């Protein structure tokens, strides 16, 4: 009986992973994604001081040091962003354009295994950076962007080590693949350019968790930036000697990020945590695309600024249920001058709720919901001469399935 169930379970898990990968191949989500496990997501992503589950590989690899069991933790986040643009006001326009509705499903898959008491290894597969915006092909901003899809896969082997009963450390490396497709119109003569680029990169990270008392836990982690040198092609329709069709290349540096968090057990069953996340967006200075056909380059200055996210959240355990809630404030990295419909960002307030349910002694189900409210943002004098007001909202639904062995 036990064997049959396990076989069945493994098979199901394998199928779910395949299905998730297939979903991901057709979609991608916001440039940086921080939803990499429903349990963490439901608590505002404040998780670096605890990192109890496989998502420690993302939030804080030291978390594995305290996990003396093997586990599988896998899930997806269904992201449904909505953006309305009013403008371009510098062309005297105030009409509303809605971004084409899309649904993104970044995945997270974590497997961990304790090699010996206090030493746990793991592998994570997730999508920490992604972006997808699409506007109607004929909209007035079509020379700036029609569609962009950026996706990344991080394959992250991780090791966590328990130095003592109250101190663990962890480290990992990430092998990264990145793909971007981009289309927009170019002048003169109204041609469409479609770029497809892909490349690989490498990053590393580390973390520490210190349990100061039975109640108080402090965690910190860091993940390096990842430089992706992408190559591919640029196609122009109609093709013309005016345009540099053919091989193209671009380099994109995914920013570094760091967490520091404090968790506190307020009373039996109730844990609260507050985190500060730093993102080194300064690495995104420009998007430079080199066209080999005529040795020319298209340079779009971005000049993003380093930024932060404040995260608070907690969970309350009652029998086989865990009730979770959280809040986050995400300060956007885009200076007013560089706001554009390619990535119409603004400061975000996130409201999180979620539920964990113990299906059995070894299996858990985590559900989460995040409402991301973007501050209304009005920009003038923009780099691309496309001013106006953006209103954005995103709904995110997370689901994760966990299995311990």
């Amino acid at each position, binding site marked *: 009986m036990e064997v049959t169930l396990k076989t069945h379970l493994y098979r199901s898990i394998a199928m779910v992973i395949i299905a998730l990968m297939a979903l991901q191949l057709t979609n991608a989500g916001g440039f940086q994604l921080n939803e990499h496990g429903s349990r963490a997501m439901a608590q505002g992503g404040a998780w670096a001081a605890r990192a109890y589950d496989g998502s420690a590989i993302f939030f804080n690899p030291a978390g594995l040091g305290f996990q003396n069991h093997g586990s599988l933790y896998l899930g997806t986040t269904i992201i449904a962003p909505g953006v309305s643009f009013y403008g371009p006001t510098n062309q005297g326009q105030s009409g509303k354009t809605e971004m084409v509705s899309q649904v993104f499903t970044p995945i997270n898959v974590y497997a961990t295994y304790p090699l010996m008491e206090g030493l746990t290894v793991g592998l994570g597969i997730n999508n920490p950076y992604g972006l997808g915006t699409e506007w109607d092909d004929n909209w007035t*901003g079509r020379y700036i962007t029609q569609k962009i899809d950026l996706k990344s896969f991080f394959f992250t082997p991780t090791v966590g080590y328990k130095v003592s009963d109250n101190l663990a450390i962890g480290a990992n490396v990430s092998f990264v693949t990145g793909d971007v497709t981009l289309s927009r119109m170019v002048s003169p003569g109204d041609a469409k350019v479609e770029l497809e680029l892909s490349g690989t990169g490498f990053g590393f990270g580390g973390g520490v968790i210190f349990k100061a008392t039975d109640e108080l836990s402090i965690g910190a982690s860091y993940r390096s930036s990842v430089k992706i040198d992408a190559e591919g092609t640029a196609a122009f329709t109609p093709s013309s000697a005016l345009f540099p069709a053919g091989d193209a290349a671009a380099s994109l540096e995914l920013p570094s990020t760091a967490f520091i968090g404090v968790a506190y057990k307020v009373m039996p069953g109730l844990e609260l945590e507050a985190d500060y996340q730093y993102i080194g967006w300064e690495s995104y200075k420009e998007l430079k695309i080199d066209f080999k056909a005529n040795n020319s380059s298209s340079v779009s200055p971005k000049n993003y600024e380093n930024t932060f996210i404040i995260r608070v959240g907690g969970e309350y355990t009652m029998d086989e249920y865990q009730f979770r809630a959280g809040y986050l404030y995400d300060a956007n990295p885009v200076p007013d001058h560089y706001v554009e419909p390619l990535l119409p960002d603004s400061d975000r307030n996130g409201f999180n709720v979620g539920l964990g349910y113990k299906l059995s002694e070894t299996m858990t189900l985590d559900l989460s919901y995040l409402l991301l409210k973007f501050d209304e943002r009005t920009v003038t004098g923009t780099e691309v001469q496309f001013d106006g007001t953006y209103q954005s909202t995103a709904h995110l639904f997370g689901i994760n399935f966990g299995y311990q062995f």
Partner: protein
Amino acid sequence: MKLFARIITASAVAALTLFTGCSEDAPSDLPKPGLGGLTINKYVAVGNSLAAGYQSSGLYKSAQMYSYPNLLAGQLKLAGAGLGTFEQPYWPDPGNPDPKTGKAARYVIISLADPNNPVIGPKGETVTAMAPENAATLMRPYDNLGLPGAPLAGFMDTVGTYQGGFGPAIVRGAAGLPKSVFRSVVALQPQLVTFWLGNNDVLGYATTGGTSPSAPTNLSIFQALYTQALDTLKKALPNAKVAVATVPDVRTVPFFTTIGPKVGAKLAANGGLSLYYQKSGETGMGTGTTKFSGGSGDPLICLTGSAYAGLIGTPTGKFYKDNGFPALPAGIDTTKPFGVHPQNPWPNALTLDSAEQAIAGLAVTNFNAAIKTIAASYGAAVVDVNAVFTDIHKNGVLISGVKYTTAYITGGLFSLDGVHPSNRGAGVVANEFIKSINAKFGTTLTGVDVASLPALDIPLSKYMASGTGIPKVAPARWDSFLGLWQ
């Protein structure tokens, strides 16, 4: 499990509530079109080919639809003006006939057999109408009174001398309508008039290389005509708001800036030869030389010279044959290599040399000073088109992600004749009118979305943007265009 089910239900309800509670109101500080308390039930445009929506050397409906007056009328209506139909003298495509050939006068990119040297000009399209589509049925003056070719004197002219070749078709004095543009305006009783004349008082001089006419309009005559125009308008329509515009410096338009640098590049590639050209007034030997080094003394080569640029260095008298010279002018020897020998120089009629540029430039400066002064004394808004296009000529202009320049064809703002704006060029002009009208009269007209206007139709798949390619317009094909000023 019951509790679990209840929680799931509650969450779902909560999520749905959040969903439906999320539709946001439109931002309050967006531009709202308005007339600032003015009542505008009639708008009339006075002007020349620029107002008419003349493009690519022709007057045709699919371009006239994007004339700056029609674009402005559209924005006025958005702001609540009760204009009804803004009547324009639409000439059904492919537009007016070339008087010599009887075929459509408008230019298209005809041949790209040699993609480096696109051939541009009329392609023999059969004309479908000999007059604007409603010329016989519209028993009132057109709201757009742009007369291609008309100089400033065309405003008061009652006999047609200064109304240009299209005067009879647009003013229609013979059909019992008012015989002058001025009388037509008064008959329409507009509350808003745009008045943009004066371009042709220098353009005819410049586009013929300073030969025909041999001088821009005399400044004191220009001042007198301009004062008379605004004065009579003020007296006849005391409450009408008037917006006037300055005359762009001819030296910024692709008609003059395209060929010279390409010829220079070709000469440089051929051992650094100099171009020998006829200076102002010269008919025989050419005493001008240039390497087009970019200095202020460089001559400007007219786009009409495009057909001859490819002949530089070969012994040819094609220019003299094409232009019906009964005999070669004294001092000319067409056995000498064309353009690189003083005895077979680049012709004066295709050249605006530094002296002629100075004359044209001074005329523009003086006309514009007069326009600004006279407009101020009559309370008219001034649209400084010259300042705008001089800036675009220097720096280009970025609009919704596209950098537009004054380059021929690829710049996006000019039509194929190199003088008249494209649809998007007209959009830029319309937005300048709107800015000035708003600033002067307190209206809050919104602008034209330039990116929404059709782009210049370029057969991209065949077009080469080589640095040395010289676009070519066969010489006879300029007749209709240059005839605007005859």
